[in-house]
């Protein structure tokens, strides 16, 4: 809240942090109302003569004023109910005010047969209105809480449909139209024809939203653009394909997937502790890529330069692996082959490059891996 004259700079240690508030007036849903109350109370205090507040004091006073309103309402409601009414009355409110002012007292409180109309409370308030200045609230307050209109799905009876099956009564909400889930299957076949083994479109959209564009390699980006062309003409497309669990099961060989990593074999030879993440678009078998490295270490090649060059040509620049840090691999590799230190250093340098990647890229790989796994279902 920024009123020009108000300052909340002086902090108190006890109440400056979020204190555990009571559920009724301190829950998150009440924050907006409490904020408005704070502004109103601050304006009132300023009119009285204060030039600044402690934040905790302001919060306390606004909380108390809110509770004051609440207790007036509660007492008024109680007296209305006692009189057999549902809606409140001016007399109910005056009763409530008298109850709240009873410990301080008001004129005429001790009269036995006093009328509520001529209550001292009302006279005090009338006097106050006449005396006090007119201070409008600083902001325009919208009506709150905003009531959300519930979109009711019509019942069978309302829609004029016959419920499928006698066991379903007609007052229940109708089933969704078959078009909402039937067309998705055909679209999925299309996308599978367009790009080999890509994920469903909604997942792509989600992934795109989450990741930074620059992180995706060029191949994936082209593939995405192709898919986007298919999905751009209708949000219904994305909506209908949002549930991969309703997809028809894939037959063997229908979708290209990367071959399986053989961890037990490799762990003896290569120091790969962490699982390897392979990009979706590049179906390179892990074993294939590491075969030269394995050979190099097994045979202890002397012309390591040639091997390295060969590897560089064979290896696609876009493949990324998430492998253990270079130091680890270096340590275990040295156990196997202590003679070819040069080779080891060169091989370690390939792994070392991965460590320079950002956390973002690792996250990208993680998301892609998860989507690969989910699409395999």
């Amino acid at each position, binding site marked *: 809240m920024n009123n020009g004259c108000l300052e909340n700079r002086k902090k108190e240690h006890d109440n400056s942090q979020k204190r555990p508030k009571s559920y009724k007036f301190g829950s998150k849903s009440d924050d907006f109302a409490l904020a408005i109350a704070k502004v109103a109370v601050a304006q009132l205090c300023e009119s009285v003569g204060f030039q600044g507040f402690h934040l905790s004091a302001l919060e306390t006073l606004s909380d108390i004023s809110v509770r004051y309103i609440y207790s007036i309402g509660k007492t008024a409601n109680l007296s209305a109910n006692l009189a057999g009414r549902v809606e409140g009355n001016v007399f109910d409110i005056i009763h409530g005010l008298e109850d709240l002012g009873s410990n301080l007292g008001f004129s005429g409180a001790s009269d036995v047969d006093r009328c509520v109309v001529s209550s001292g409370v*009302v006279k005090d308030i*009338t006097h106050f209105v006449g005396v006090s200045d007119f201070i409008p609230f600083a902001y325009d307050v919208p009506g709150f809480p905003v009531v959300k209109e519930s979109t009711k799905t019509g019942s069978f009876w309302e829609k004029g449909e016959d419920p499928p099956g006698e066991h379903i009564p007609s007052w229940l909400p109708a089933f969704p139209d078959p078009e909402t889930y039937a067309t998705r299957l055909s679209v999925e076949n299309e996308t599978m024809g367009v790009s080999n083994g890509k994920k469903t479109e909604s997942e792509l959209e989600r992934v795109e939203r989450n990741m930074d564009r620059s992180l995706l390699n060029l191949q994936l980006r082209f593939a995405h653009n192709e898919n986007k062309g298919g999905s751009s003409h209708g949000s219904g497309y994305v909506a209908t394909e949002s549930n991969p669990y309703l997809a028809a099961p894939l037959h063997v060989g229908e979708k290209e997937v990367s071959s399986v990593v053989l961890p037990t074999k490799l762990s003896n030879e290569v120091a790969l502790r962490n699982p390897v993440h392979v990009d979706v678009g590049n179906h390179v078998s892990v074993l294939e890529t590491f075969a030269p490295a394995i050979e190099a270490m097994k045979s202890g090649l002397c012309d390591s330069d040639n091997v390295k060059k060969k590897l560089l040509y064979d290896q696609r620049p876009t493949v990324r692996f998430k492998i253990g840090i270079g130091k680890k691999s270096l340590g275990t590799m040295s156990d196997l082959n202590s003679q070819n230190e040069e080779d080891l250093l060169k091989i370690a340098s390939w792994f070392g490059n991965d460590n320079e990647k950002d956390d973002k890229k690792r996250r990208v790989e993680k998301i892609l891996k998860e989507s690969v796994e989910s699409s395999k279902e």
Partner: protein
Amino acid sequence: MNHNRQSNDGKHDDDSALSDFLASLMDYTPTIPDELVEHYLAKSGFQCPDVRLIRLVAVATQKFVAEVANDALQHCKARQAAVVKDKREKQQKYKRLILTMDDLSKSLREYGVNVKQQEYFADSPSTGIDPATRDE
């Protein structure tokens, strides 16, 4: 009979006073916005379609807050006067009037609201004792 008639007239006056007052409330917009008051009245279960009653509650709350703030201001000024009295020879420097928890708790005490806070440290045997009993 006369007595009844007089009392009836008296009641009629009071009625008119009340209705006049409620009508005048529509001209005077209280500082506490109507929507806020409606929200908390609805929360407490009080239903009323009449706007004048909402205004009445808003004005009553405004009066309450103004009174509490006024009492806190008196406490604040009294404390400043006490400080100035000691250092009368030196320059009289009036600090800004700031609403503190201390003043607020003192003024709310008279209204029956207890916002006493835990003492940060106890430096004397009478720390934390109710001030009314302390005088005794």
